[in-house]
C-alpha cells in the first residue's frame, strides 16, 4: 500500500506543469480559474481557442489510444494531468464531453467510419459536444424516454422528434448525442437508439434555462423532425441503452483529484474570510471548517482507493459512494461560506444580479445533489448494487 507516485509519473507531472506554465498565459491569462460549474457560460470563445492550443500540445484526449491522436495515458497519468490542470487554474474544458464521453463511446461501440468522422475534430479541439439524455418526463427514471426516431425506408435517414432538457452548453456546441426510441411499441430500456446529431439544422431549437443564479448554462433542446444520417446511429437500433450505460462505465474518476483541487481553493477562500472577519472564533464555525477539511481529505483517499482498484473497469464500492460524498460535501461548503460571511453574504457587488463566487457557490451547489443522479438515486444504487438490497417495486401505470 503506497501513497506516492512513481518517478516516471512525477516526471510526467513536471512535463504537464511546464507546458501549462508556458501556455496558460498572455491571451489566455483572463480565463484562468474560469468556466467551471456555475460559470460555464463565460469566456466561451476564448475557451474554444484554448482547446485548440491544448490540442496543438497533444493535451486533449490524453486517455485515447495513439492511433486516434491520444497519449494512451495511464490512469495515474490522467489523474496527474487533471491535478496539474486544476493547480494551474486551467479553465473549464469546453471539450470535456467529446473527450471523456463521446470519444470513449465511439472507441468502444462506434464503426470505423464513425471514428474517422468524429474523433479527429474532437481530438483537434474544433468540434464540441453536448449530451441529450434527460427529458422533462425522464429524469431520475431515464428509461422513460419518449423522444422518438423514425427511419425513412428509402433514404435510411432518421428523423428525431421530442425534447431533451438540462443539456449543458448546447447553444455553444456542434453536436449532441441523443438517446431516442426507435421502436414505438417498446418501453423502458428496450427499443432505444443512440444517435449522433448535428445541432446546426432547422429541426433543432435550443432554449436556455435561466437558473436561480440568474445565469444560463443548461438548455432545453427541441427536436422537430431533426435529421440524422443512417450512418450516425451508434450500435444497432435497439442497442441504445447498452451504449449509453457503457458510457457511464468510462467514468473511472480520473478527474476527481482535479475537482478536489478546485474545492480546496474554495475552502481556502472561506478560511481566509473566517480569519479576517472573526468568524474563526465561533466554536460552531470552527467545527464545521475542520469537518470540511477532513471531508476533503476523505475524498482524496476515497479517490486514491478508487483509482487503485481493479483494471477491469468495474465500479468498486469506493467509486459508488463518490458522487453522493462530493455533492453533499460541496453543498455543505456553500452553506458554510454563507454562514462565515454572515449578513455580508446578502450584498450583491455589481450589476442587476452579478453574484460573487461564494454566492454562486452557495446557490449552484444545490444542483450538485441533483444532476448526474440525485442523492436519492445514488443511495438506491449503493443499496442495490453494493449491498444487494432489493429494488423498489415499480409503479403500475403507463
Amino acid at each position, binding site marked *: *500500500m*503506497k*501513497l*506516492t*507516485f*512513481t518517478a516516471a*509519473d512525477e516526471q510526467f507531472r513536471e512535463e504537464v506543469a511546464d507546458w501549462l506554465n508556458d501556455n496558460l498565459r498572455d491571451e489566455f491569462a483572463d480565463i484562468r480559474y474560469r468556466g467551471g460549474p456555475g460559470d460555464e457560460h463565460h469566456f466561451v470563445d476564448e475557451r474554444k481557442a484554448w482547446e485548440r492550443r491544448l490540442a496543438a500540445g497533444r493535451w486533449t484526449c490524453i486517455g485515447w489510444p495513439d492511433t486516434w491522436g491520444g497519449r494512451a495515458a495511464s490512469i*495515474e497519468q490522467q489523474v496527474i494531468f487533471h491535478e496539474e490542470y486544476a493547480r494551474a487554474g486551467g479553465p473549464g474544458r469546453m471539450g470535456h464531453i467529446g473527450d471523456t464521453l463521446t470519444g470513449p463511446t465511439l472507441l468502444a461501440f462506434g464503426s470505423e467510419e464513425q471514428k474517422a468522422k468524429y474523433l479527429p475534430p474532437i481530438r483537434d479541439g474544433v468540434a464540441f459536444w453536448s449530451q441529450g439524455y434527460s427529458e422533462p418526463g425522464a429524469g431520475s427514471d431515464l428509461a422513460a424516454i419518449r423522444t422518438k426516431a423514425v427511419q425513412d425506408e428509402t433514404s435510411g435517414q432518421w428523423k428525431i422528434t421530442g425534447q431533451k432538457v438540462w443539456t449543458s452548453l448546447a447553444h455553444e456546441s456542434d453536436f449532441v448525442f441523443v438517446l431516442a426510441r426507435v421502436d414505438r411499441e417498446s418501453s423502458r430500456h428496450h427499443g432505444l437508439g443512440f444517435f449522433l446529431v448535428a445541432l446546426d439544422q432547422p429541426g433543432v431549437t435550443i432554449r436556455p434555462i435561466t437558473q436561480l443564479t440568474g445565469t444560463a448554462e443548461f438548455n432545453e433542446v427541441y427536436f422537430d423532425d431533426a435529421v440524422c444520417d443512417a450512418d450516425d446511429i451508434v450500435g444497432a437500433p435497439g442497442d441504445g441503452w447498452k451504449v449509453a450505460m457503457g458510457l457511464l462505465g468510462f467514468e473511472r474518476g480520473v478527474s476527481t483529484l482535479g475537482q478536489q483541487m478546485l474545492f480546496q481553493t474554495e475552502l481556502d477562500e472561506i*478560511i*481566509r474570510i*473566517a*480569519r479576517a472577519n472573526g468568524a*474563526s472564533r465561533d466554536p460552531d464555525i*470552527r*467545527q464545521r*471548517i*475542520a*469537518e470540511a*477539511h*477532513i471531508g476533503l*481529505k*476523505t475524498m482524496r*483517499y*476515497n479517490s*486514491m*482507493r478508487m*483509482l*487503485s*482498484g481493479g483494471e477491469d473497469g468495474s465500479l468498486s*464500492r*469506493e467509486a459508488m*459512494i463518490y458522487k*453522493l*460524498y462530493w455533492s453533499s460535501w460541496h453543498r455543505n461548503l456553500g452553506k458554510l461560506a454563507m454562514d462565515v460571511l454572515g449578513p455580508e453574504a446578502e450584498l450583491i457587488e455589481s450589476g442587476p444580479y452579478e453574484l460573487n463566487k461564494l454566492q454562486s457557490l452557495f446557490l449552484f451547489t444545490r444542483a450538485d445533489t441533483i444532476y448526474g443522479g440525485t442523492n*436519492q438515486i*445514488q*443511495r*438506491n444504487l*449503493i*443499496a*442495490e448494487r*453494493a*449491498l*444487494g*438490497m*432489493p*429494488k*423498489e*417495486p415499480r409503479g403500475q401505470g403507463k
Partner: protein
Amino acid sequence: MKFAFTDEQQMLRDTSQAFLADKSTSAAVRAACVSPEHHDAELWQSICEEMYWQGILIPEHVDGLGLGWVEMAIVLEAAGERLLTSPLFAVAQSTAASPLFAVAQSTAALVGCPASEMRDLLLSSLAAGNVISLAMGNQSGGWDSVGVTANETSTTTVLSGEARFVPFGFAAAKLLVVARDASNTLTLWVVDPQQDGVFVEPTPTMDQTRPMATVRFERAAVSSDQLLATQADELVSDTLALSRILTVADQVGVAQASLDISVDFTKERKQFDRTIASFQAIKHKAADMMLKAESARSLLYYAACTADAWLAGEVDRDALHEAAYMASACASDAAFFNAGCGIQMHGGVGITEEYDIQLYFKRARATESYLGRPSEMREAIACQLLDGDVA
C-alpha cells in the same frame, strides 16, 4: 501509486477474518465478557502462537515480525468486524476482548523509546505473548493530562497518583507508566503491578468487550533501571497519535460490521408482505452507513501509511498527528452512526440483549471518546487552520 493492499496484505486480511470467524463467535465474545479474566485466555494463546499478531509491530531482532502499521490496522479492523460468511455465528469482534489492543499500544510506545536493554527485553516479552499495558491517561483535562508524578527523594524515585482507563491493566504482567517529573517533563517507567505501592483495580465498563483498570501509585519506589525514557513529552504525544490510529482500525471494523449485520437482518425481516430491505427508507440509511464506513476506512489506511512513513522518517510528526486527528474524528462518527442506525434498522429486537447489534453500539460508544472526543479532534484541526500566523 497503489493505495490498495499488496497480495501479502490481502492474505493477512483474509486469514485474520477467517480465523476470527471461527474462533470469536458471538457466544465466545459473550462468554469472555463475563469470565473472571474478562477475556478468553485460550484464544489469546492461540493468537499468540498460531497467528503471531502480537508481533506485527515488534522489530525482528527482538523476535517480532517487523511488519508495519497497515498490517496492524488490517488485523485490528478484522478484530472489530463481524464476518458475513456465517450469519449463525458470525461475530468476529473479540480480539479487543483479548489484550491485543493493549499490547499493540504498548509496542507503539516502546518502539519509540530510546534503544536500551530493558526496552528490547520488554519487546521480546510482548512477542512471547505477555501482556504489557500502557498507563498513560488521567482524563481530568484531556487525554494528554498525566495523573502520575515521579518525585526524587534522597534515596530513590517514587511514583504517586493515578492512571485511569488502562486497557487490560488488570491482566498486565508489566505496566508502562507515564509520569511527570519535578521539572514538569514526562518520563516513562516500567513497573511490576505486584510491587509495593502499586494498586490495580479492574473498572467495570458499559462496553464489556473493552475492559479497563485504574492503576494507583502510593509512593511506589522505582529504580533507574526501570526508567525507559526521559524528556518523553513528544514520545507520549506521538504514542497518543498512534493509539488513536489503532482505535480507528477497531472503529472501522465496528462500522462495517454494524452495516453488514443490519443489512442482513433487513433482508430477512418481512413487514407489509415485503422484506424491509426493499423500503427506500431502509436502503437510504444503509447507503449512508456504507459511505461512512468506506470513508473511515480510507482515512484509516491513509493514517496507517502515514504512520509507516513517519517511522521511516519520510514525513514529520505534524503529518502523523493530523492524520490521526482526522481519522479519529471520521471513524468515531462512522462507528457510532452505523451502530445507532443498526439498532433502528433492527427495530424492537435491536434493543434486546440477544441480538449482537447492541454489542457494537456499546463498543462504538466506548471507542468514540477513548483518547478524545470527535469534537476535540476537529478543534485540533481547526487550530491548525484558523489560529496562528498565515503561512
